[in-house]
């Protein structure tokens, strides 16, 4: 296999991991005001992702940096062309990250309520905009002969892109609800299951239509399978959550995310950013890539270190595998100093 193809797959893998992992973080953040009634419950909700959200977000940093290293032209065009949506994502992630760390640092209801809003919007904005960004990547954007973005901000918000945004948003709400049902006990768990049941319907509707359009417009024969698999994952999640099988439901939403992202990347290949103006202006794995030497170094590094990362990150989830309930949240007065 050519190294450019290897790196296309590697980057697809990095984004898939990112959406799988931070997908439920975003969902948890968006559901914070819905599922957490009162401060103690909100703390339960936040602490389900407390030890892991930061490492989950690193997948985005590494995915972006891998695009820079393996496909510099793609990185340059994507980040300069999608300027304002990406700026909004960065601003949201900054606010959200600080919010998790600082929310509990003052015993003041107004202080907490502001950070709760920050967590909600800081999760919702990227959850929606990532769908917009990836819909545009698959559909293509106006690129000129120098591979520079030649469109306007409005071009990025086509109905198809908005549907993509809606899809990722609802999908992450569902993924987060299932994750919360899996990681909490008591009332929050019951409510999370209820929300998951409703979100599953929305996810099937939005995600189904988005993947269907993607398939018809840009699909390959094999993406019928991945798209259908994603839909099956959603159905599995919906059924399992009603029967109280939260582990199976999480496998279902996880599979839906993995297969949906796979559908997008297979539909995209061998382009990395198609031009809607002239096909010759499209960025492809070929004309956007780094030299074989750089790709070789990157391949060795990734081959050695990615499995190690997966092992120790997986171990973290094992260490913090227990469910959390309101009775385990330390009371403010005798809260141990970290």
């Amino acid at each position, binding site marked *: 296999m050519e190294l450019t193809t290897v790196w296309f797959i590697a980057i697809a893998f990095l984004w898939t991991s990112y959406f799988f992992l931070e997908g439920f973080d975003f969902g948890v953040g968006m559901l914070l005001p819905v599922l957490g009634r009162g401060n103690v419950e909100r*703390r339960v909700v*936040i*602490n389900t992702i*407390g*030890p*892991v959200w*930061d*490492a989950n977000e690193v997948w985005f*940093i*590494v995915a*972006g*940096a891998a695009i*820079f*290293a*393996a496909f*510099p*032209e793609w*990185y*340059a065009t994507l*980040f*300069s062309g999608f*300027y304002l949506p*990406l*700026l909004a994502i960065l*601003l949201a*992630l*900054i606010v959200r*990250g*600080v919010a*998790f*760390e*600082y929310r509990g*640092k003052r015993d003041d209801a107004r202080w907490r309520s502001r950070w709760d809003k920050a967590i909600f919007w800081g999760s919702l904005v990227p959850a929606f905009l990532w769908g917009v960004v990836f819909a545009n990547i698959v559909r293509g954007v106006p690129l000129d002969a*120098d591979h*520079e973005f*030649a469109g306007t901000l409005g071009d990025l918000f086509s109905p198809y892109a908005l549907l993509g945004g809606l899809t990722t948003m609802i999908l992450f709400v569902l993924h987060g609800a299932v994750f919360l049902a899996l990681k909490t006990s008591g009332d929050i768990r019951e409510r999370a299951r209820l929300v998951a049941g409703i979100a599953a319907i929305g996810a099937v509707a939005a995600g189904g239509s988005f993947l269907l359009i993607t398939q018809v417009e840009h699909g390959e024969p094999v993406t019928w399978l991945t798209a259908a698999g994603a839909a099956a994952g959603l159905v599995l999640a919906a059924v399992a959550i009603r029967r109280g099988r939260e582990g199976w439901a999480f496998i279902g939403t996880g599979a839906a995310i993995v297969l949906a992202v796979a559908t997008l990347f297979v539909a995209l290949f061998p382009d990395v950013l198609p031009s809607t103006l002239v096909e010759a202006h499209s960025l492809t794995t070929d004309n956007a890539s*780094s*030299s074989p*030497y*750089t790709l070789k*170094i*990157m391949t060795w*590094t*990734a081959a050695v270190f*990615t499995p190690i*990362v997966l092992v*120790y*990150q997986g171990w*973290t989830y094992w*260490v*913090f595998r*227990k469910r959390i309930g309101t*009775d*385990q*949240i*330390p009371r403010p007065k005798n*809260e*141990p*100093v*970290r």
Partner: protein
Amino acid sequence: MDTVDIARWQFGITTVYHFLFVPLTIGLSALVAGLETAWLRTGRTAYLRATKFWGKLFLINFAMGIVTGIVQEFQFGMNWSDYSRFVGDVFGAPLAIEGLLAFFVESTFLGLWIFGWDRLPKKIHLACIWLVAIGTQLSAFFILSANSWMQHPVGYRVDEETGRAVLTDFWAVLTNSTHLVAFPHTITAAFVTGGMFMAGVSAWHLARRKNVEVFRPSLRLALAVTAVASIGVAVTGDLQGKVMAEQQPMKMAAAEAIYETERPAGLSLLTIGTLDGDEELFGIKLPRVLSFLSTGSLDGEVEGINDVQAAEEARYGPGDYRPFVPAIYWNFRLMVGVGMITAFVSLAGLWLLRRGRLPSNPWVYRIGMASLTLPFIGNSAGWIFTEMGRQPWSVYGVMKTSASVSPSVTATSMLISVISLTALYAVLAVIEAGLMLKYAKAGPPSEDEVLPPPPDDDDPDRDSERSLAFAY
């Protein structure tokens, strides 16, 4: 303002801001790891209380370093897309490897350290904070190899067909002579930053004679680390000066505001130039010192700005190859001056604390507290000096900053970006400083608070019902 200016302002603001948090993260993570090690080896509760206290301040700072780092990773593509196209083959790899090797380690093991106090065996818990500390240094290593390549590009060729830089020798990039002096200089400066921070906060508590059993050992550790690291900063800084004089003579000349080549050259204590910046009006100099610092010989030649300008014009074609001399000259002095003061403060502090002493003069503590700010000033001045001193180049001798900016991004978009980021950073600075003050003043937890609660009964299932050791 054109897009180059806006993009430069954004890079300057966001990078200097980001680098307020980075050196403190590097320095404090190792210091906290050292304190936890001391607790494990001696069993003394004071060390555990110190670990928890400094750990908390470390985390308040760490959060800001993380979130401001996200912008650093992506503004190359957003504002500097032509730069990214040109250098991606060389410059992207260290960034990606930094993420894969360092960021994952830092974020994962910090999560384990924060939440794992009662979930992990003590030694594993300790290993987590050491891994975080090592991760911060790995991160510094790779990102500085990328920056050093911009200062002194090696291990590449420019492809004739595409006009882009192509990596030919990754090992050469990692072992770039510029990098081998910039990396230890940055790391030792980070230890000075962490050390002075710990010293300043300890001084506040010791002036009030509060928690002396926690803050006296903290202060001694902090001052010892600062003193050793200060010497390291000076030695590596001196080596850097020699490398810089050879690789970027313009930066050296601007640092000293020497307009005409001198042999031997004196070290400028004060130079005032004409407003158009090509002539010296007035100066006070130490004879021959600059020659020695930049060449190692009392008789060495140091090139002047006007001569380097002529040489670079001959080499790269007509153009203005001078950086903004006053900024270079004064930031260089600020950096060196601050470094010398912190070295002195740390050595004086160690002397005053010798053999169990604890000075009573309140000015000793006031000076200690005030010195906390110095490394932050020195770090910022150092980076402003080294980055502005490279101008007009983004990659020295290869690509100009004016040719690096994104052609497809409008000035309006860039203004929205720099204004929103600056406003958000300003708000976060106030919040962060408020929290730092609150938790620095609050002092360490008491002995009772850090000791584990006695087990309720023998039923192991009860364990899961217990309160979490830490929760957001």
